[in-house]
């Protein structure tokens, strides 16, 4: 995201500072971490993939972060969520909380599964990863409001969102909701598991927030043409 501080503008100060941009030259390529990508034989590759491989032999490659693994259990969405939950650089604690959340969800669902009758068993989803991904999907907003100035006044204009922005908003809402709106004495993993299960069933506060945002966007539909991009 660009940050421009128009107050301190001197002729030599760049108007746009690199606040959260990557320091890498765009010449560098992303690393390929998955094991399957390397075990495919020559014959299976299409022409483009062969070109990409040739390119990778010549260009420099960025260093992989600490949290990326070539393990089969690696999940980029989950890693992002853990990074967002992390405070003061305590990745171990954030990861621990996430693991406890997943286990908690699994435990509740497996208990329900074993107690359910034969007919109900198919409807119960026991996989915590599926629940996590589905819950995040259910929480993602489709449109959001942006404050656009026109003729001296600021209007709330509904704008489309990119995939990354939607994912970020869903995760952010989930985490803030668990941190603030729940009882002080419950553990984070307990709060998170309750909220994720509710979001999976399309209930709960985060879904409510998403619906309210959609309603506001619908109400301000008239200003949609103020958007110029």
């Amino acid at each position, binding site marked *: 995201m660009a940050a421009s501080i128009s107050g301190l503008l001197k002729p030599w100060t760049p108007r746009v500072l690199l606040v959260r941009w990557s320091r890498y030259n765009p010449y560098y390529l992303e690393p390929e971490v998955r094991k399957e990508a390397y075990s495919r034989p020559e014959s299976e590759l299409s022409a483009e993939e062969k070109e990409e491989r040739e390119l990778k032999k010549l260009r420099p490659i960025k260093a992989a972060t600490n949290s990326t693994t070539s393990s089969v259990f690696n999940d980029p969405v989950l890693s992002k969520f853990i990074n967002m939950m992390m405070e003061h650089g305590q990745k171990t604690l954030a990861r621990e909380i996430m693991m406890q959340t997943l286990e908690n969800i699994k435990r509740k669902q*497996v*208990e329900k599964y*074993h107690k359910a009758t034969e007919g109900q068993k198919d409807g119960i989803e*026991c*996989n915590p*990863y599926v629940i996590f991904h589905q819950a995040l999907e259910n929480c993602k907003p489709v449109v959001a409001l942006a404050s656009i100035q026109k003729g001296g006044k600021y209007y709330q204009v509904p704008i489309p969102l990119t995939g990354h922005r939607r994912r970020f908003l869903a995760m952010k809402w989930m985490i803030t909701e668990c941190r603030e709106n729940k009882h002080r004495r419950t553990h984070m993993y307990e709060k998170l598991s309750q909220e994720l299960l509710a979001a999976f069933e399309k209930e709960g506060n985060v879904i409510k927030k998403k619906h309210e945002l959609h309603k506001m966007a619908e109400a301000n539909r008239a200003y949609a043409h103020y958007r110029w991009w």
Partner: protein
Amino acid sequence: IMSLHRLAFRLRPTVIQVRSLHSSGYVQQQEAVAVEPEPESVSVFRTHEKDPACHSDKHVGQFYTLSSAHMKTFNETCIMVRQPALEVISYLKKADYSQPALRYVFYGVKGTGKTMSLCHTVHFCYTQGWLVLHVPDAHLWVKNCKELLPSSYKSSRFDQPLEATTWLRNFKITNEHFLPRIKLKERYVWTKRESTEAGSSLGELVDQGISRVKSSSDVVGAVMKELRLQSGQPGSDFRLAVAVDGVNALWGRSTIKKEDKTTVDPEELTLVYNLRKLMKNDWSGGAIVTTLSQTGSLYCPKSAYLPQDLLGERGFDSMDPFIPVSVPNYSEKEFESCYLYYMDRNWLQHPQSRTEEGKKELIFLCNMNPSMFERLCGYL
């Protein structure tokens, strides 16, 4: 047992669940028939043998179900039959009970299943009708003591009423049917007005301890003394099994402090003192099965797991001679069986964990350690 495989701080609630498991399960087991011959095909990792007395080498690596009805999450309880427990059970079957009691010590690296082997052995003793004196964790008696009273019996010792009452309650539930049968041989005086006469049953003594919290530690001492005296006699019809988890706590250091901030030696605690008397093999007619544990121990380095290191000099000298039984990590067959059990119970949910690659990765990550494997599968 899913929830029972936990470690460290989770071992306390684990072992307490074992207690409640015992309490609910054993009452029903009294009526249950030992072996159910079921002709249907037995799955590779499960066995239908519910009686630990019939477990033998061919059952190694298989899970047997305890017949108690309800357990959280899986709706059943299963323990894996493993070599160390089988060894101790075979010794118990062949031992001569007119000789002084034999001491068995389970030792091993952290998380290899020592407590579970102890539970298996205790289950065996219970099904054979022995009187089981089970201390779920001796470390709890030497740390985090909320109330410390000076003992009424000897002025230099200290009482712990809370721990003593919890233990007495559990003892009562596990050994319900023994309590009216055993009669006391001596007279015990608690206060000027209260005393228990010789000839009254053990049940009354235990009730006395539960109701009068202040004298509960002395009651525990009295119970242990009575059982020790009576178990070897030709007239007694029961065998005594003493099962202590974390026996290195009895000879270690404690974190309890007196009012003038000096540390209390475990010897000065009535509970520990009486338990140490039980650990000596001067009585006959039973067996002592114990476990060493580094996870709850105080002032012990993490790498220590051998009996010499954990018991210390005093402990080793008083426990000597004992039969050490090493509890190793899972063998491949046991790992396979545990993996299949989790698959069957729908515990391994991640789609990748069910593939060959995922399995190899799990083996690599946990290095065949049972507790690490359980923790990994928790979130996969």
